[in-house]
């Protein structure tokens, strides 16, 4: 059997990045949630907030750790699977990734220790500041990565000289045409993911009848954040749709499942299609009449462009893009339904007592992760056959590595990552089952970092000379 290095390189990157994206999404969402929770605790001194903070900080720390480890692998994979891409695009992509390390990782690394271990060692305000810096770091990190990826989607500010990318305008490389819409889309996705995660766990406690105060507060707060973020996401998602329709029409043509140059008028909205790429048609379509015109063209009779507008050799595979996009969109509809019902139940004062709704929340716990992964599949498969839109084809970006080598590393990644996810799930479920511990109703230290360091030095001295001064 002949192994195709291109297919294997793509499968390998898809696998590792799919696994990786779960953790930064969770970290960004939970870090923002923790920041708000600690702020509320500082303001109200309500011990439940501290209990919530301590509980979610443990899960955040685990996710953060796995996210960092799995993210490092991706940089190496540029060399392993896509060396020609790294060679050609390095001058534009490399600095963004380097700046992520300098600005975000340094910030996170500097304050993460205080956040995780400083609750009893530094004053509450300094600890809150550390939490804010970690949350800011996660978002700065996302900004640089989104800038690099958006540049691959909508490259700008460069010239091609001797087959290599030469940066002519740094501002336009970073601030490329899709970045400022894709960034809020991703950040909102992370906030929504964190919110549904938190609310789902809280709902599970309420259904089980344990940790009820904690459960009520997390359900309420999680749904509160989700309500605002989902509404913003629908708005931003539509803006992004319009932007990508302009810059990457073939992606959106594939995402909507139309083949003909112009659809019928009014256009239906396709929910399920079985595409036949060879014959450029759908074998089966399940659609709602008129809705396509309404949602995609914002008019009652608008026509939707199909994939035949794009030359065959430049078309993405419709099935991948269509189902990536529709999974994301259908999950978004479900999320909107959940937050809308939550508002209704709040009005009725039945938010914590409606068991079918709490069960739905538990089922929706991983919804944000599913939508985020599906969204990234849309973005990445819809860009094909390009790795840098209009500049470099994926087939031309592959490393000259034998298929066997690529397959063996893919197997190694699958095995190692399976261990990672198993360990993460076991420990996360254990923590959730164990539940929040009772938190003290006051700060456990009230001082500055100097005091904390002094305490640390005294502790060390006491350990080194036991018996002295006691």
């Amino acid at each position, binding site marked *: 059997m002949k192994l195709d290095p291109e297919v294997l390189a793509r499968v390998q990157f898809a696998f590792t990045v799919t696994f990786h994206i779960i953790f930064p999404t969770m970290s960004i969402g939970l870090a923002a949630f923790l920041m708000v929770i600690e702020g509320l605790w500082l303001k109200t001194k309500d011990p439940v907030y501290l209990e919530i903070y301590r509980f979610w900080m443990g899960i955040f720390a685990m996710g953060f750790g796995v996210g960092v480890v799995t993210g490092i692998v991706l940089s190496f994979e540029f060399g392993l699977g896509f060396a020609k891409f790294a060679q050609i695009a390095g001058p534009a992509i490399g600095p963004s990734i380097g700046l992520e390390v300098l600005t975000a990782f340094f910030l996170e690394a500097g304050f993460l220790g205080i956040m995780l271990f400083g609750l009893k060692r530094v004053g509450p305000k300094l600890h809150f500041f550390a939490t804010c810096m970690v949350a800011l770091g996660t978002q700065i990190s996302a900004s640089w990565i989104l800038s690099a990826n958006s540049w691959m989607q909508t490259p700008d500010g460069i010239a091609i000289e001797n087959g290599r990318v030469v940066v002519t305008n740094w501002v336009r490389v970073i601030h490329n045409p899709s970045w400022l819409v894709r960034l809020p889309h991703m950040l909102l996705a992370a906030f929504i993911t964190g919110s549904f995660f938190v609310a789902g766990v809280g709902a599970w406690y309420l*259904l089980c009848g344990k940790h009820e105060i904690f459960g009520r507060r997390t359900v309420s707060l999680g749904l509160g954040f989700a309500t605002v973020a989902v*509404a913003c996401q629908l*708005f931003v998602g539509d803006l992004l749709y319009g932007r990508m329709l302009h810059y990457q029409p073939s992606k959106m043509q594939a995402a909507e499942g139309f083949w003909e140059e112009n659809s019928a008028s009014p256009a239906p909205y396709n929910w399920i299609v079985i595409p036949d790429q060879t014959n450029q048609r759908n074998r089966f379509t399940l659609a709602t009449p008129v809705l396509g015109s309404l949602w995609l063209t914002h008019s009652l009779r608008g026509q939707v462009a199909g994939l035949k507008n794009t030359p065959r050799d430049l078309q993405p595979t419709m099935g991948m893009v269509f189902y990536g996009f529709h999974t994301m969109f259908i999950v978004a*509809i479900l999320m909107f339904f959940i937050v809308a019902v939550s508002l209704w139940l709040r009005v009725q004062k039945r938010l914590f007592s409606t*068991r079918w709704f709490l069960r739905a929340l538990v089922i929706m716990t991983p919804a944000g992760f599913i939508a985020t992964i599906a969204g990234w599949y849309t973005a990445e498969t819809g860009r094909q056959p390009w790795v840098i839109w209009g500049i470099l084809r994926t087939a031309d970006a592959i490393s000259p590595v034998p298929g066997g080598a690529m397959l063996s590393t893919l197997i190694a990644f699958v095995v190692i990552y399976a261990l990672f996810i198993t360990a993460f799930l076991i420990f996360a479920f254990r923590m959730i089952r164990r539940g929040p511990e009772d938190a003290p109703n006051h700060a456990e230290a009230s001082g500055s970092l100097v005091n904390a360091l002094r305490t640390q030095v005294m502790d060390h001295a006491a350990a080194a000379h036991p018996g002295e001064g006691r």
Partner: protein
Amino acid sequence: MLFGRPDLLGEAQMSAASFSVRHAIGVVLATLLGLVFFNALLGVFGLPAAITSLVLFIFLAFLIFLRPQPDRTQS
């Protein structure tokens, strides 16, 4: 099993709001309002309407968040 089973047998304890015409009308109106907001946020009625509905949605949601919830979990 890592993630124990919720108390599914507690169905009998769940809230059973009695059906009434007023309640049904409320549900229908809320659904219609939700549909209007969803489509407005998706830009169906244009960008200004989308921005307006986003602000309005968040404002209404905030007002509803302020509504205190009873402490009981199961009625």
